[in-house]
């Protein structure tokens, strides 16, 4: 009797073990941890003209979400990058912007609450210069522009859902457009607003297994 019970216990334990193994093999419940990135320059002001006008180079900063690193501009025609920033414009590696499978849409809601990308979501691709996957313009995509105080503020409750160059998924929340990671106060000087703008801080989560679950 005792032996039979032992056998039964062993059998159940093994079954559970096997089942759990097979389950973790197919869907990987490993939590995806969010990564914070600070002060990524996005065509920053490099100087002022004699009249005081800002001078910029008109360049994108390319970023790999898969590798969590800035990608040199020389690799802009490759699939090494996933998103790129120039001033308030954010492009993805697809459509008219790149050779990859990139695309994106803007999700309204909280970063942590976006656990699975809804099945009916439509990923858009860049179609420069008329439209971008991440809509440009104040109040339409990821930011608002306060013309009175000359400040760009990321909209709260917006998550950029990104399809990477390799066709995997990531979610991004922009937290600031100013160097140092916080939006400048309205009282900051014009010069400070000019020179500290165009620095992105954001947090993101990347799902390496290709699923739409974070």
């Amino acid at each position: 009797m005792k032996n039979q019970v032992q056998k039964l216990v062993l059998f159940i334990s093994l079954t559970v073990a096997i089942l759990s193994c097979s389950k973790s093999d197919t869907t990987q419940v490993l939590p995806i941890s969010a990564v914070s990135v600070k002060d990524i320059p996005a065509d920053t002001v490099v100087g002022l003209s004699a009249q005081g006008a800002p001078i910029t180079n008109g360049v994108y900063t390319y970023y790999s979400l898969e590798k969590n690193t800035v990608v040199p501009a020389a690799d802009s025609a490759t699939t090494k990058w996933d998103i790129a920033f120039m001033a308030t414009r954010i492009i993805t590696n697809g459509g008219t912007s790149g050779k990859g499978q990139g695309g994106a849409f803007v999700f309204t809601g909280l970063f942590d609450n976006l656990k699975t990308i809804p099945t009916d979501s439509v990923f858009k691709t860049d179609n420069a210069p008329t439209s971008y996957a991440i809509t440009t313009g104040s109040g339409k995509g990821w930011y608002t522009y306060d013309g009175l105080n000359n400040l760009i503020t990321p909209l709260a409750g917006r998550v950029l859902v990104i399809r990477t160059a390799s066709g995997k998924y990531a979610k991004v929340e922009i937290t600031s457009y100013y160097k140092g990671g916080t939006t400048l106060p309205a009282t900051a000087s014009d010069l400070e607003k000019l020179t500290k703008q165009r620095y992105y801080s954001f947090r993101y989560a990347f799902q390496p297994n290709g699923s739409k679950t974070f």
Partner: protein
Amino acid sequence: MQGDSVVVTANRAERKLGNITVPVNIVNAKQIQQVGALRLTDILKEQPGLNMTSGFGAGVQLQGLNPDYTIILINGEPLVGRTAGVLDLNRIALGNIKKIEIVKGPSSSLYGSEAMAGVINIITETVANIPLQASLRYGTYETIDAGVNNAYAEKSIFYQGFYNYFSTNGYSIRPNSNSRVTTPIDRYSFNQQLKYNIGNNTNIAFGIRFTNEKITNDISVTNGGTTINSIGKENNTDKNASVSVNHRFSNNFKTSFRSYFTEYNAKQDLVTVTGAPYYDLLNHVFKRVENQTDWSATKQLNLIFGAGAVWEGVKSSRYDSEKIRKTNTIQYGFTQMEWTPSEKLILIGGLRFDKNETFASAFSPKFSALYRLNQKQKIKISIGQGFKAPDFRQLYLDFTNAAAGGYSVFGTAQAQKVISQLMRLGQIGNLYDSYYQLKTLKPEFSTGVHLSWEYEPSLNSYLSVQLFRNDIRNLIQVQQVGSYVTGAQLFSYLNIGSAFTQGVELELKQKLNTNFNITAAYQYLETGDKDQINLIKANKVYTRDANGYSRLLSLNDYVGLPNNNTHKAQIKLNYNNHNGFFANIRMLYRSKWAVSNTNGNEVFDKGDEFASGYISLHTSIGKTYQSGFSLQIGCDNITNYNDPLNLPNLPGRTFFATIKYQIFKK
């Protein structure tokens, strides 16, 4: 203590303040003079429940409602010429003013459009006690005010004149800037009134008023690091003229015919160093004829009947053609019944109907009552509906801002026509659902409820507690209706949104002894946009936490409408003696208020940017001599409080000295 002062605005008839059923504040000539107020702004900013706004001139906010919702009258006739809904109260010189009456709560049942938050009526002097008066004042920022009043009366004639010159060099709070927050101004006004009695029961009265101001408005705009200096000239003229014939058939029956004409013309020129001129013109003409008949049917029952017609026209460089005047006509009728069934109770019901040519009509009922609990206490209640008609800009604006990205704003009367033309030209990228919702604008409506308790324990004390609530619906708001092929936005106006303001007002007046008296007031105010509140409740509004990460906004975080103070308070101490000496010290307090939306949502919440609350202190002393001379000196903003960004109209500490000479009637 409220005494026997007479109020005309509340009932459109002379009534003792003690019998008025709605909340009223009276500012008399003595108060105006002892404060040293020159312009309407100077005195209104010290009144309970009022708040001055900056931007497009100095407007007045009444119980949390914006300047466009309060009608400004001079002797019962409206002033026109609002920019973005704001009537600049600096335009009005306080010369031969007898008193200012401030009626709170919707008063459209008597005054029609704009009397949604309340009415401010400026009443000029009616007796010729001072045949001649001349005054000269000099103050900080080379501010000069010179005025002459003359008056003459005999059996059948009353005449008075008022001439005023005001000039200031303005000031700049920010160092190293050409831009001046208060710009250099030269302003002339004059005012003439003549009343002639034809027999004992009939009189005819004429009045004209003229103000011209020239403003130098040089500005420096720094855009993207480039500074552009411009030379700006503004020239504004305000004219009005009125004629009225008043006849008394008997002690119980009288009628008055009034006709009124006013024109406001504002012209702005801005020339930059590069020569690119900016030009703006606004010309607003308003004509009105009106009859009012008062009938005391019995001792207990007074009736008023009135009817009138308005013709109004506006020309603007921001409309499709500045040469073509846009017009509107309004016909209206109103009635009011005042019933005093007993010594203790007064009941008033009123009704007005306004029929408009260019927008939907409005029906404005009002009911109010006063009940005396005993000799010392009374309760008042008033419930009324107010409205504000869509203004000309909301109907006819045709404005494209080439400088700022080429966006366009079209008034509703043109929007669909203009946009469909642009569509045929292939210039329209896409149209939103809101475009198809465009239709004839309805007026904005408010319902106001005021409940107050007044207590006068003795002749020396007065206390009042007032609760108020205003609900506004059909708010006219700018909405994006589509975009050009270029991506530039297209805007028009829609009746959307609703809001509320509510609060408590306390007022205390206490005579301490023969020389001293103290007055104090406090207002607690809550405001809110009902649609935003619903969105917050539906968990659709977000904000950011300390890490910059988004989180849901809770109703606790919501602060309501911008530019409103939750707490406002004031204390004034006055001294007067019978040698003609007076002194006062006034303390005004405003709590912090939301100024800009900085945390990435469309609502104002605790995480946004606020202007700090502050206290300002003011004082003035003066003496009137037997010879007719009087001297006055004063200091405003003693502590030199300033906040250039949020309070551009508040200069630092300023001083003034006034010398005045009066000839009294023998």
